């Protein structure tokens, strides 16, 4: 976890120390690019949590989204259309969606661990790899389904299996 944070700090420091000045005319395009980058970053975080992280996809998505968003804004300027609004809306929606996913995932994980601790099973170490992976899968599944009304009881303690998700119930939104 420390390495990406270090990357952010390093990038900010680089930006502060460098004297590279971006022309004022490009400010709008750059802001769209920043939004796209933020979206890609959150997507990357989500992918990590879902355990299907792919480095080339993240990097290419990061660069392409930023570039295309800026290009879209530029083309919109030429055509006299506020095309950048499309990018803002699209990325905004995705950012909130991703944040919602990450939030639910983390809350689910935290609650499960809390329950396990409360159940008093000190024999199972909380740092166990297999347990962690299982928990992550559960959390991802949970977060995907947007289910917030109930937290499934932790079945893993009993029978070492994933909790059955009630598929027949209608899905609810936030």
């Amino acid at each position: 976890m420390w390495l990406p944070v270090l990357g952010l700090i390093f990038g900010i420091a680089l930006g502060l120390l460098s004297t590279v000045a971006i022309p004022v005319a490009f400010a709008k395009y750059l802001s769209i690019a920043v939004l796209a980058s933020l979206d890609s970053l959150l997507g990357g975080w989500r992918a990590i949590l879902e355990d299907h992280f792919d480095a080339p996809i993240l990097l290419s998505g990061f660069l392409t989204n930023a570039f295309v968003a800026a290009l879209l804004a530029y083309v919109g300027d030429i055509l006299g259309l506020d095309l950048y609004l499309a990018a803002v809306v699209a990325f905004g929606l995705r950012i909130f969606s991703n944040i919602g996913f990450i939030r639910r995932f983390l809350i689910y994980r935290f609650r499960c661990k809390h329950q396990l601790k409360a159940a008093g099973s000190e024999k199972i170490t909380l740092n166990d790899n297999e347990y962690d992976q299982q928990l992550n899968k559960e959390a991802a599944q949970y977060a995907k389904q947007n289910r917030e009304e109930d937290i499934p009881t932790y079945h893993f303690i009993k029978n070492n299996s994933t909790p059955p998700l009630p598929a027949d119930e209608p899905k609810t939104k936030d």
Partner: protein
Amino acid sequence: MKHPIISTKIKKWQIPLFIVLMIFGFVLVAQYRTNVAVQNNLTNLSISELTELVININEREAALSAEREQLQATLDGINEKIDTGISMTATTQNQLNTMQMITGRVPVQGPGISITITGESYLIYHDLITLVNELFVTGAEVVCINDVRITHRTLINETLDEFGHRDITIDGKVLLLPIIIKAIGNQDTLEKGLTFTGGIINKFNTIYQVFPIVKKEEKLSIPAAKVSPSLYLKSVFRESVEEESVEE
């Protein structure tokens, strides 16, 4: 066997995320700075803001020019003082040089006449004193006898040697022959003052059978006098000034 900590610490997603976050941080800061520049841009200001800005700038400009004028006046004053100081220094230096030349503290040179007295003569120290007095009277500025500068403290006297002869002394030293007297001043005046009929040279020739040779010289060099320091002298003027300042 892999180290458990290392194998769990650096995961495969950390390096790409490091790169992406680094670029993101850089772009974020760049965007922030650009945005600040946009906000500070004059084209984004309203007419009232621009008017206020112009008024502020004008006020600042007026204040700065007033300050500049004040500083210029101060500078002029200082320069004037420096010039006065320089001229005062030069005047004082000139006066000091003149005083040093007059009191015999420095060697001097200039046009004048030389009087050479050779051979045995019946010259006595009184005659020498008269001659020197005559030279000063006729306008000599500096006089020396055998390279001994004549000042207000020079003593011309005589002494008896072991054979009973009278020897002329200057400041206690016996004057040897030939006696060469140098005087700086107007050559013509000096020469005429000595050699006119009935003058001192004429007296020497007729009464004492002494025949001095008077010669005009274009460039005479006269050494400095041996000046002993004044131990008891005090300037009355300076003392009175000091007393006044103490009283104040």
